[in-house]
């Protein structure tokens, strides 16, 4: 048995030998000839256009250039937003200041946070996004398992309804649902988001059900039969075998559901806020939507140091994105790999 060190040494020796041999080829040649030999036509061609095994330099260069350019375009609005949010009034007017503000001016953030009621909205936003998400995970997992595991009558029909409920715009059912919530007295409370989620009809729930459906179909049937032979009932099989194996799918659903609920302002305003103005529920995105009016009223009462300007608005935008951005950078690996592992693209 060769030790690792020995192997390394051998590899080094072989490399040196190769080099010696290569150098020997060039021995006795003039500099020009050496150059010619080293950069022969085929070699250059292979370097630029690639061979069967390796991609050429030109192709890689084009790919990197495109990716970097488009990537810059992608981040451009964010960079613009952040840089503008630190500018004070003079910087905004000064045309020589383009990207870097002359000083690190934080007053915009302080004022924006005050106007948006940042900490309260943040906490409520977490609740508004978090509770329905948890319901979504459990119920969609349950329903998805039912669709994947059992062959009952009208299954295809129900699947069609599932897809139909995704394609149908929310606006059609919005008005009667609003009336329904109003009659149930849950309008303007968080229940108007939690209740549909509890019955598998939360925001984008069809997608999540389909994700779980795809995932559970990949579980070998033998595994479930084995559990049944060992005396596990239907529910026990579900939570002892299906649920633990579905963790990648759960992470996917968790992330997407949270993000989608967080970014939803239309329905939040309609149901959770109830449009009556009396509700205590709000989140950052809704606050951002009504930012101009609330900021102007704050200015009128003299609560803020600056008046409404581009940089304050950008500061508010940054603040409303910031929590998700932080979560994203911490969990980015899960975000990006989630769809691969959960097999959303199975069919």
């Amino acid at each position: 048995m060769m030790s690792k060190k020995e192997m390394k040494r051998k590899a080094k020796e072989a490399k040196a030998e190769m080099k010696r041999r290569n150098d020997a080829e060039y021995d006795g040649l003039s500099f020009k000839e050496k150059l010619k030999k080293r950069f022969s036509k085929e070699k250059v061609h292979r370097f630029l256009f690639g061979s069967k095994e390796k991609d050429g330099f030109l192709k890689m260069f084009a790919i990197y250039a495109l990716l970097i350019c488009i990537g810059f375009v992608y981040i451009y609005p964010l960079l613009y937003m952040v840089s503008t949010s630190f500018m004070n009034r003079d910087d905004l007017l000064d045309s020589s200041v383009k990207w870097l503000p002359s000083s690190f001016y934080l007053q915009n953030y302080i004022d924006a946070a005050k106007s948006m009621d940042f900490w309260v909205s943040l906490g409520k936003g977490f609740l508004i996004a978090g509770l329905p998400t948890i319901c979504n995970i459990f119920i969609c997992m349950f329903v998805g398992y039912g669709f994947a595991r059992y062959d009952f009558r009208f299954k295809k029909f129900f699947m069609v309804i599932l897809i139909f409920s995704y394609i149908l715009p929310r606006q059609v059912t919005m008005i009667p649902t609003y009336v329904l919530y109003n009659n149930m007295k849950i309008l303007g409370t968080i229940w108007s988001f939690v209740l549909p989620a509890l019955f598998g009809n939360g925001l984008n729930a069809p997608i999540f059900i389909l994700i779980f459906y795809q995932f559970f179909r990949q579980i070998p049937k033998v595994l479930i039969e084995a559990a049944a032979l060992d005396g596990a009932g239907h529910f026990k099989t579900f939570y002892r075998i299906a649920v633990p194996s579905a963790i990648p799918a759960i992470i996917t659903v968790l992330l997407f559901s949270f993000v989608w609920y967080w970014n939803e302002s239309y329905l939040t305003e309609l149901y959770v806020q109830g449009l009556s103005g009396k509700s205590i529920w709000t989140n950052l995105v809704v606050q951002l939507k009504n930012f101009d009016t609330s900021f102007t009223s704050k200015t009128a009462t003299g609560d803020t140091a600056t008046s409404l300007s581009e940089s304050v608005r950008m500061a508010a935008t940054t603040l409303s994105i910031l929590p998700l951005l932080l979560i994203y950078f911490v969990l980015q690996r899960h975000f990006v790999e989630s769809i691969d592992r959960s097999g959303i693209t199975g069919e």
Partner: protein
Amino acid sequence: MDKQEKKNMIKVRPGRLARREARMGYVFITPWLLGVLAFLLMPLAESFYYMWFNIRITPLGMKFTPVGTGNFTQIWLENPEFPQQLVTYVWQTIVEVPVIVVFALLIAIMLNQKIKFRAFFRLVFFLPVIIVSGPVMNMLVSEGAATIPSMNVQSVVAAFDRILPSSLASEIGEMFSNMIMILWYSGVQILIFLSALQKVDPALYEAAKIDGGGGWECFWKITLPTIKPMVLLNAVYTVIFLSSNEQNELITMIKNAMFSGTKEKGYGYASAMAWMYALVISLITLLFFLLLGSRKDAYDRAVIKAKRAAKKEKRIQRSIERRSARRARAIKRRIEQKKYREYANHD
């Protein structure tokens, strides 16, 4: 399968145990079924009912006045902003969806190459998914962060104006001026394409390479057919995303109509708007289904053709058989009659 075969085949009914197990499927999907009843089907029926009425909110509850198709005539004849916006929306979607899907495919293909910093690039291109909420987008667009200043839109629009109808050209111009937004809408699509691309069997590419296929050919003959279902999925996803996106003015219009205190508008009027909107979206979705739906390939077509030919042949054969049998019977009868007559005469 012809009749004879069908007769011979024994139909296997699932056993009692299997049927009882299948019934468990209903237990699992019950929560969702209830939810569909309460939050999808009932509101759907109600809003269908609402749209034929003028609804006024009184302290005693809602007061319905039947107006027939009055809501529709009002939308179309008296308040023309909605139909105008609807037409704009249709053009916008038809222009933007292909751009988004093709762009997502391009980025996904580039990210699927053997490149360095792949994780970083994925991070960048997936970033917009967590940011694209209505208010944030509105803020960024209104502050001009969504356009690249050096891009000259006017000349592009002018160029398109010459060859295309003006409504389409103006949409394309709009698209160019909000290019970053379009790019931002393709986060999830990139991810879906990426995971589909990674599932393409590498053996296919190897086989193609041995047969002398280049990269371009491989793309059209292997990659694209394999991920074709994903193209459809992404197109539908994009349509739905654009329809429920808060940048879309139609949904704001519906909401405003719902809560406008005027006499003629209200729940019924908004319901009529929502139904028209839903109809348009379904038509667009249908269009993409027809365009991108899985057409059968040459092999399937040949099989179907052969089957049909075989069936026809069998039918002809059967009719010949029947005809000859009939003739045989007729001849037999004639002979018998002859015999009878002879017998009678004889008598």
